[in-house]
């Protein structure tokens, strides 16, 4: 303690010592050789307090930051002589664009009313070395700013690495944000997450507390690399998709630049003493990663299954049911398990076609996602609870689950097996039970569709030719009428002809009777009785038949009586006629001598015909 107090008193006693005169100059310091695209520092140092500064024309370089001014003072005490040096530095962070040798013109700085010009610097720019990772951007894109604490992007920078540059739509891309540092970083905070338009994003390091750390050599410098963030990106559309830069705030422990160096072990230890002045300082610094683009390929259209609903990755698929033999109203569990690598969250539910009498609830979907450094994988389980409401044999038809495998660049199809159920009648409300108390249900319509086509043969007809209005139609229409007319005419003729026959018969009745009677007279002379009676009988009947238009079949004594009465013949004449007829019939079949009777009957027959003729006139 005593020692320390002594030191301080010495220090303060020496302060008013006259400073040694020193020549003021503006010097430039720059690496002799850099890579194209590499950031480097261009430092102008004025060993006095600067009033103004005008920088050089840096047309061949990109100014990433600067000029940033910093001052430092240095007090040297050598052999009781105190030298106080004062320095103002102007620092540019620049990068060369092209290869070649460039000359940086001198800069100007003013101090104490005098202008100082630096000498020119020559710098050789080599070709850019290839970046260590595919998507790692050149360093010039890392728009790292130098903080007031003098942290440059050589000390610490942020890089983005993606595992593939042109993925398929929906294929996962693992993007790693690596923090390269040569400083001690005490903390960092992600300020701005990249915009994720067009992506489905899954943080991979959500749960891991420990960051993966390792050493890497970049441009000959050893860096500690920490993978601070890792995400799995699932591009949701094809084309060029930009990943916005990530911004982080870091707090770095930086060794102070204005170190007092005395070369004296005593003072060195004195000034480096943490009590007196901490050599490290916590400096806030903003870092921004590079932005980069992914060229997302669309999924091939060729051979794309119709069931494909956007799943990309590599999956296993299993569909099971817990029972196939059960009673109605007992639940069935249909479980579909899809596991594998890829975005299982985006797997849609399967479109099972359940029989209409199955009551199906919305599937219970559980998703178990594992994130790791290898990306997103997981299991998606769809659990369908099915309750068959009626007995019978039912089938759930196979359903396809298809996904795109980006490694093999093909679509893969998995089919569920065909599930057959044999459902027995259940307890309680069974629709098919048919009992009086069974709950009736209206028919469930599943969908509507048009009715099916007609089957051949068709009754084809010529277009525009119609039966109605055709000549055939008219012929047919008129023909019944013609037919009727023809029929009427024919009928009339027939009736007329019939009438003529009656008239002729009537006319001829008497003459026929006379002929017959003459014949009878002949038989009378020959005395052949049989023939005579026969002839006479026929003469009389024939006369009646012809005269009164009575068909022979209808001839009888009654009809004769009726007809003659109808023709208003006197009853005694009719009686006589009937008597003659009767006698004639009697004589025909009676035995014995009939000659006398024959004469008499002949006379009577003649007589009665004469009388009827007379009556009818």
């Amino acid at each position, binding site marked *: 303690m005593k020692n320390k107090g002594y030191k301080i008193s010495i220090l303060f006693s020496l302060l008013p010592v006259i400073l040694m005169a020193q020549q003021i100059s503006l010097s430039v310091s720059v690496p002799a050789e850099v890579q194209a695209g590499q950031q480097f520092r261009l430092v102008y140092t004025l060993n006095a307090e600067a009033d103004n500064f005008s920088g050089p024309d840096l047309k061949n370089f990109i100014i990433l930051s600067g000029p940033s001014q910093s001052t430092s003072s240095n007090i040297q005490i050598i052999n009781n002589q105190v030298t106080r040096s004062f320095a103002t530095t102007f620092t540019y962070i620049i990068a060369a664009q092209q290869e070649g040798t460039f000359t940086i013109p001198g800069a100007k700085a003013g101090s104490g009313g005098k202008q100082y010009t630096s000498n020119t610097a020559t710098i050789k720019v080599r070709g850019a070395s290839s970046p260590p990772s595919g998507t790692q951007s050149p360093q010039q894109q890392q728009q790292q700013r130098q903080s007031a604490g003098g942290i440059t992007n050589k000390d610490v920078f942020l890089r983005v690495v993606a595992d593939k540059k042109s993925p398929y739509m929906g294929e996962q891309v693992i993007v790693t944000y690596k923090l390269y540092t040569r400083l001690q970083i005490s903390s960092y905070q992600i300020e701005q997450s990249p915009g994720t338009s067009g992506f489905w994003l899954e943080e991979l390091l959500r749960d891991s507390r420990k960051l993966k750390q390792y050493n890497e050599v970049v441009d000959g410098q050893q860096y500690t690399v920490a993978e601070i963030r890792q995400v799995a990106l699932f591009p949701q559309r094809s084309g060029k998709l930009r990943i916005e830069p990530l911004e982080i705030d870091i707090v770095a422990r930086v060794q102070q630049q204005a170190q007092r160096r005395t070369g004296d072990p005593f003072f060195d230890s004195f000034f480096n003493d943490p009590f007196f002045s901490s050599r490290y300082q916590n400096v806030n610094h903003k870092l921004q990663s590079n932005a980069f683009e992914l060229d997302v390929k669309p999924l091939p259209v060729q051979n794309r299954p119709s069931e494909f609903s956007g799943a990309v990755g590599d999956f296993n698929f299993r569909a099971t049911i817990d029972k196939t033999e059960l009673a109605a109203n007992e639940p069935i569990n249909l479980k579909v398990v899809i596991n594998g690598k890829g975005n299982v969250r985006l797997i849609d539910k399967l479109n099972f076609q359940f029989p209409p009498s199955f009551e199906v609830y919305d599937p219970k979907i559980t998703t178990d996602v594992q994130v790791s450094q290898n990306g997103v994988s997981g299991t998606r389980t769809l659990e369908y609870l099915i309750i068959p409401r009626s007995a019978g044999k039912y089938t759930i038809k196979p359903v396809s689950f298809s996904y795109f495998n980006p490694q093999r660049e093909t679509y893969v199809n998995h089919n569920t097996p065909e599930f057959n159920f044999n459902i027995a009648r259940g307890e309680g409300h069974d629709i098919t039970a048919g009992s009086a108390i069974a709950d009736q249900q209206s028919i469930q319509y599943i969908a*509507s*569709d*048009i*009715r*099916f*086509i*007609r*089957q*051949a*043969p*068709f*009754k*084809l*007809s*010529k*277009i525009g*030719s*119609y*039966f*109605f*209005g*055709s000549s*055939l*139609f008219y*012929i*047919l*229409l008129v*023909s*019944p*009428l013609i*037919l*009727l007319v*023809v*029929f*009427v005419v*024919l*009928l009339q*003729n*027939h009736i007329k*002809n019939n009438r003529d026959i009656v008239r002729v018969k009537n006319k001829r009745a008497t003459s026929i009777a006379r002929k017959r009677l003459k014949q009878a007279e002949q038989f009378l002379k020959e005395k052949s009785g049989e023939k005579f009676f026969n002839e006479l009988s026929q003469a009389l009947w024939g006369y009646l038949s012809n005269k009164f238009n009575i068909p022979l079949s209808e001839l009888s004594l009654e009809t004769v009586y009726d007809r003659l009465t109808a023709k208003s013949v006197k009853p005694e004449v009719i009686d006589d006629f009937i008597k003659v007829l009767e006698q004639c019939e009697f004589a025909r079949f009676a035995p014995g001598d009939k000659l006398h009777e024959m004469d008499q009957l002949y006379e009577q027959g003649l007589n009665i015909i004469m009388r009827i003729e007379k009556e009818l006139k």
Partner: protein
Amino acid sequence: MTKESAYIKSSLWALVILTIVFTGVSGYIVAGPADDTIIEANEEYSNGYYEHALELYKSVINQGFASSDLYYNIGNTYFKLNRFPEAILNYERALVLAPHDENIRFNLELARKHTIDKIESIPELFYERWFKSLININTADGWGAFGIILLFIAVVFASIFLLSTRRGIRSFSFYFSLILLLLSIGSLSLAYLQHNSRTSNRDAIVFDPSVTVKSSPSENSIDLFVIHEGTKVRIYDIMGDWYEVRIASGSQGWIKSSSVEKI
């Protein structure tokens, strides 16, 4: 000449004429080489190759043949191809040839549901509805044939009336024949009405995706309303290439003839 021979003669006549009727009617119905095409087309339809089925059906139409069944199948094919205006047109054509067909009406109704315009039609009076459904029981040809057959039977009964001497038969056949004659006249009138609506061809289906109905037959006239494809219109007047049309709701206006297809 006796009565028997007259009977035989008249029944022979009737037989001859009936033969002519049936051969005549069947003369309008052709079943020929087109049958194979239709069978093939039906198979293609069943297998889901609607485009090819359509081609085959159309080839039958191009041969100059048609039937309600054929139009119905074409309508179904268009329906399956989601070409609803064409489906509606073909169903309507089928319906002209088979107005009582329930399947055609069902499918037409389904096809209409896929059109954009929902038109509230003017409600018809009950007797109009009855009369329409009565007419639509049969086609013009069907009504015509029915009328002719009724007329034949009426003539037969008239003959019985003329021939018979029995009082009961005579009065029965007289009145029966009279009723048949009246029914025949009625049937023929329905045939005439049906034939008129068939040949006048006043209905059309809109084929353009959307058509602006104008107040007069000129492009510069005022727009009245817009109708869309699949809507049925009735043509009332023709002026150059413009039709004056009326839709089911009763609204009327002029449209270009090219935007519709006649049934």
